[in-house]
């Protein structure tokens, strides 16, 4: 009986949890399209700052063959309490996965040999075209758009 007063109830959001095999599968994607893979967390202020750019451009480029994946490094214990509320509040519809392997040293190097583990970072790649660029820090909206346009072709 309380329901009518609660407004529309959003469907419960499910976030795919991945480990090293899931990460490797993303990194090895054979399709001929640009992947934009951002590593971030809700506890990281510069990551949160750039999140709207990823959301906006993921919509803008969804028909242009670019696939965005936002890999959250929120602690597994905070997926329900921090990550999902953040995504709901900021209306993030882009694809989000959460990396649950906390043994960071066992996988950071697989993403890029130069990465020391700081976030945010973003990886751009198209394996079919042998394109790979690792961006080692935060981006502005303009930088993100320029990088996508540069590596998309």
């Amino acid at each position, binding site marked *: 009986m309380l329901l009518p007063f609660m407004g529309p109830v959003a469907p419960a959001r499910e976030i795919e949890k991945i480990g090293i095999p899931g990460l490797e599968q993303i990194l090895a994607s054979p399709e001929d399209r640009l992947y934009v893979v951002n590593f971030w967390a809700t506890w990281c202020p510069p990551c949160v700052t750039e999140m709207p750019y990823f959301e906006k451009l993921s919509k803008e480029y969804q028909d242009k063959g670019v696939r965005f994946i936002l890999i959250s490094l929120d602690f597994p214990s905070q997926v329900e309490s921090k990550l999902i509320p953040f995504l709901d509040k900021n209306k993030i519809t882009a694809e989000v996965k959460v990396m649950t392997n906390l043994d960071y040293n066992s996988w950071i190097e697989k993403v890029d040999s130069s990465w*020391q583990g700081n976030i945010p970072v973003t990886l751009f790649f198209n394996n079919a075209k042998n394109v790979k660029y690792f961006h080692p820090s935060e981006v502005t909206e303009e930088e993100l758009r320029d990088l996508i346009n540069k590596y998309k072709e």
Partner: protein
Amino acid sequence: MKKYLFISMAALMITGLLNSQSPYKAGDVASDFKLKNVKGEMVSLADIKDADGFIVAFWCNTCPVVKKYDQRLQALHAKYAPKGYPVIAINPNDPAVSPGDSYEKMKETAEKLNYRFEYLFDETQEVARKYGATNTPHIYILSWRDGKLVVDYVGAIDNNTDDAAAADRKYAEDALESILKGQPVSVAATRAIGCSIKWKKG
């Protein structure tokens, strides 16, 4: 051809200047420094008596990963300072970018958390750049050998940020135990997710 070579070398050099240097690795000789601690005193590693080496930790007041490791860094100091390896924590963050990392806030943090180790402010960020630190926390274990500060280990404290009890690889401790026994450090470099150092803009 010569001209091309020159241009590509110049480009490489500029790239090198723009990015911070790659981190020190085991076997490198680290630079000493002179930085202000939370008591307002200038501290150099060479001035610290009775130390055979140091656990240098790039650190800050604000990063949630640092906060997760707070007790663990204090425990490392309590255990290894008496054995000749004190913790030296260094905050390299620009307070203009991260206001919670100002010198005043460092004093508050050190007092609130009862830091027993030195907590220094790398205001110019020169030390972080020289060491090639990229994130907080970022640990460098150094040993005095023949008057030089030799890097023995670079990386994380252990392999589980979220839960100290679940960490089954204690990288920093393992490295220190090997060093104290005069043995080579078996894992001398690790990587871990952390907060980017907040570099000065422009």
